[in-house]
């Protein structure tokens, strides 16, 4: 069904240049070994067809050891588990996607990436084009234990407590990041946007929140899934598959020999990392019981497309101007970017319109320079599709406390009103006078500490002939002389 929809979309966007894109799929789980035990067949299948798989693991799975170790291991338990997930990722990619025969890629090394202002650990394995690629993100949040009570070593924090408001923030065990619940879901969505490449539709795979279908599950499983599903809920182009996790061992075997062997191999590679560092082998009767089943249900099929993948939207102050920059990783049916600006963060007005690429599968960069800036400037992007649908970006705030007072613009020529825009809101009273070329003052006004940067003076009943005048402005201890033309 998804494929049919995908084809229809491509037909509807006839102007779109046909280009093969890897199918992207996202798997969000609590622990480093969840996907091998509960979702391995799906992952292997996605890779086999040339897809790209992104694994987002929310907790450190530290089982209360925090950043510590045991059994005399020289390596922190959570790091051995992370490496295990990376090992099993390579294992599954290598046996599922064999286009690189007779070679395979090197075991990836950790990268630190900033996403949604969080410093995340990422491992990227495989073909950079995306086919057969498998990417791991580790958020390293505290293990909440089965009941979500947490562990003393990590101040009894847990995803469950965060969601339920029992705690307001949760900090990764390595101290790198602290999240509110909204920051967590926004970070998950930001990861998804940054990794989706050109795929217009894709699936989130996670544990089921249906207590009848997936009863008695681990608290971290449930709340990882809750976070992920909330992250994508407004995006109907992202489908959701819900998997049975812990309870699957109570259900009948449904995997073929080959799929069971794949699951065993994936989990074996995970366990290999542990036993390399003196941790007990996790290949025991409990975990083996999960090799033989994999159950999932489609909770939501994807509808439509995610119109634009905005990688980032940033602003910076440069030479008394604001440089706004943004980039997209993919665009489908996009029309334009409307830059909206506000001085109070509440009321936004259209500042400028930038045409969009329309269709793009590669990264596109855009920029706009705003010279008319105030002390505090709020910007946001409105990303508009050809069908009129739109989406708004995050808000960029530029403060210009260091900005020196100056005159930004003056109505010139003028008729019966002169508008003066200051760089900053004047901090004192303003004296304005208009002097003709004979040195005669024809207009004089005083304005007491205006509330905005824009000051307007009416010439009113004063009859001014069409000629050249000098506007003298005294403001914040400075004197400005500006030549104006009367129409």
């Amino acid at each position, binding site marked *: 069904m998804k494929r049919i929809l995908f084809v229809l979309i491509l037909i509807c966007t006839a102007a779109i240049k046909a280009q093969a894109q890897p199918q992207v799929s996202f798997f969000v789980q609590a622990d480093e070994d969840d996907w091998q035990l509960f979702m391995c067949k799906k992952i292997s299948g996605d890779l086999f067809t040339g897809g790209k798989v992104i694994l987002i693991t929310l907790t450190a799975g530290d089982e209360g050891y925090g950043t510590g170790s045991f059994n005399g291991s020289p390596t922190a338990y959570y790091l051995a588990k992370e490496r295990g997930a990376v090992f099993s990722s390579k294992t599954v990619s290598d*046996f599922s996607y064999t286009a690189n*025969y007779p070679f395979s890629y090197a075991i990836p090394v950790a990268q630190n990436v900033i996403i949604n202002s969080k410093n995340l650990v990422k491992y990227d394995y495989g073909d950079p084009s995306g086919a057969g690629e498998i990417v791991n993100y580790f958020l390293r949040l505290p293990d909440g234990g089965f009941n979500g009570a947490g562990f003393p070593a990590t101040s009894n924090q847990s995803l469950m407590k965060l969601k339920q408001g029992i705690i307001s923030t949760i900090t990764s065990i390595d101290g790198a990041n602290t999240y509110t619940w909204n920051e967590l879901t926004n970070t998950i969505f930001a990861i998804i946007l940054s990794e989706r490449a050109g795929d217009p539709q894709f699936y989130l795979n996670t544990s089921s929140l249906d207590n009848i279908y997936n009863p008695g599950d681990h608290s971290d499983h449930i709340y990882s899934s809750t976070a992920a599903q909330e992250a994508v809920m407004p995006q109907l182009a992202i489908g959701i598959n819900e998997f049975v996790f812990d309870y699957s061992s109570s259900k009948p075997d449904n995997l073929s*020999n080959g799929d069971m062997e794949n699951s065993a191999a994936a989990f074996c590679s995970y366990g290999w990392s542990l036993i390399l560092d003196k941790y007990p082998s996790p290949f025991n009767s409990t975990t083996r019981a999960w*090799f*033989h089943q994999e159950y999932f249900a489609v909770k939501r099929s994807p509808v439509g497309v995610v119109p634009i993948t905005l990688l980032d939207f940033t602003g910076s102050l440069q030479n008394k101007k604001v440089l706004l920059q943004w980039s997209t990783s993919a665009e489908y049916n996009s029309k334009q970017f409307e830059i909206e600006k506000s001085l109070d963060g509440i009321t936004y007005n259209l500042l400028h319109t930038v045409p969009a690429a329309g269709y793009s599968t590669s990264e596109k960069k855009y920029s706009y320079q705003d010279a008319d800036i105030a002390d505090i400037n709020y910007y946001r992007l409105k990303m508009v599709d050809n069908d009129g649908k739109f989406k708004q970006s995050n808000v960029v705030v530029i403060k210009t406390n260091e900005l020196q007072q100056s005159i930004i613009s003056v109505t010139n020529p003028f008729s019966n009103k002169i508008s003066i825009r200051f760089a900053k809101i004047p901090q004192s009273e303003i004296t304005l006078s208009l002097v003709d070329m004979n040195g005669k003052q024809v207009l004089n006004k005083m304005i007491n500490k205006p509330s905005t940067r824009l000051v307007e003076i009416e010439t009113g009943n004063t009859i001014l002939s069409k000629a050249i005048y000098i506007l003298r402005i005294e403001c914040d201890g400075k004197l400005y002389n500006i030549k104006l033309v009367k129409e």
Partner: protein
Amino acid sequence: MAKRLLFIVCSFLFSSGTLKAQQDVSYSIQAHEDDWQLFMNSKIVADLNATGKVVFITLTAGDAGNGDGAYSAGNPFYLSREMGSVYAAKFAADITSGATPAPVPTATIAVINGHNITKYVYGNTVNYFLRLPDGDFDGNGFPITGHKSLQKLKLGQITSLTSVENSATYTSWTDLTNTIKQIILTEKGTDNQVWMYTASLDNNVNPDDHSDHLYAAHAGQDAVSAMLWVGITEFIDYATSSMPDNLSVTDHENAAAIFNLSEWGIIEKQYASSYIENHKAWLPMDYFTVKRNPVGNAPFSIIGEENLSSNNLTAIPMIVSITSPVFTNKDVSMIISPYEKGELSTTIYNNEGKSIFNLITTIDSKEGKLINMGKLFTTKGRYVLTNTLNGKYIERRKITVE
């Protein structure tokens, strides 16, 4: 037929005197680094589960025509396969022992029968890698290793076989089998009866097998032909993939995991994975038959105080089996594996160094020979037995009579 009779006689001779082994030892002799994982997995794991020791003797480098070269990130292909086998052995040992996992073992060089052989020891597993050239499926070998193969050595088409990295040259088939024999004796510890696992040499049972599989089995079985205390279990190799699944769920899981570890050695060095359908088809089943039960007892341990051969009078013990323990007024027999035809002089000395028995035996072939010395002893104590073959091969063993 003569051998069969010998086995029956031996079983009577030694039935009352078999000592329980402190640790059972089994030997897996295979051509390639991943053969035991694919064809013998359940047996290996069962032995380890029973706290036995498993010795893997891998004869070829499995280099697939690359010799000691590489086609990936600078690591020779055969070394990646070796490490895979070591990883698989460690994983099997870890899941069966329950002990705290130890680090991956490092290689040592063992000098066996005058040859340098790479050896890894982990837990109850030992790996020996002889690194002989891959002979390819048909035994014709590869250009990079001079088209040499086990098959050609056995059939006399070549006179020697050198390991791919030139660490050892085997100057004859017998040189190779004597080396395997020496490994078996070195590793048997105090076990009096051991098992050898090889590919089946019965073409009806194990048709269309790889040449290296078959000739590795020949080498292993030739090595123990006269060592009747070594039982032989023959496994079906390639043909199992067309046979019904027969492993338990647990054994099947183990096979998948252990073969995966073997593959990990390869993929971590950036070679492509073989964990694909044509190999996985061998995971759900193991088929084997007992070709020969062990009969009699191994010679006295060559370790510890019983070893009087430390002066290396003979490189390979001639005595392959002897009544043990020995009792007063009971028959004493031994089986020898002679190096050549000729005359064997057997003398027994008492604790004072006085000769109390002498026997001359004509050796008319190199086949194993049973020698019954009758009721030799009337007094308990410690004695020394000396065998001298043609006046030049001398072997001495200490005997304790109870």
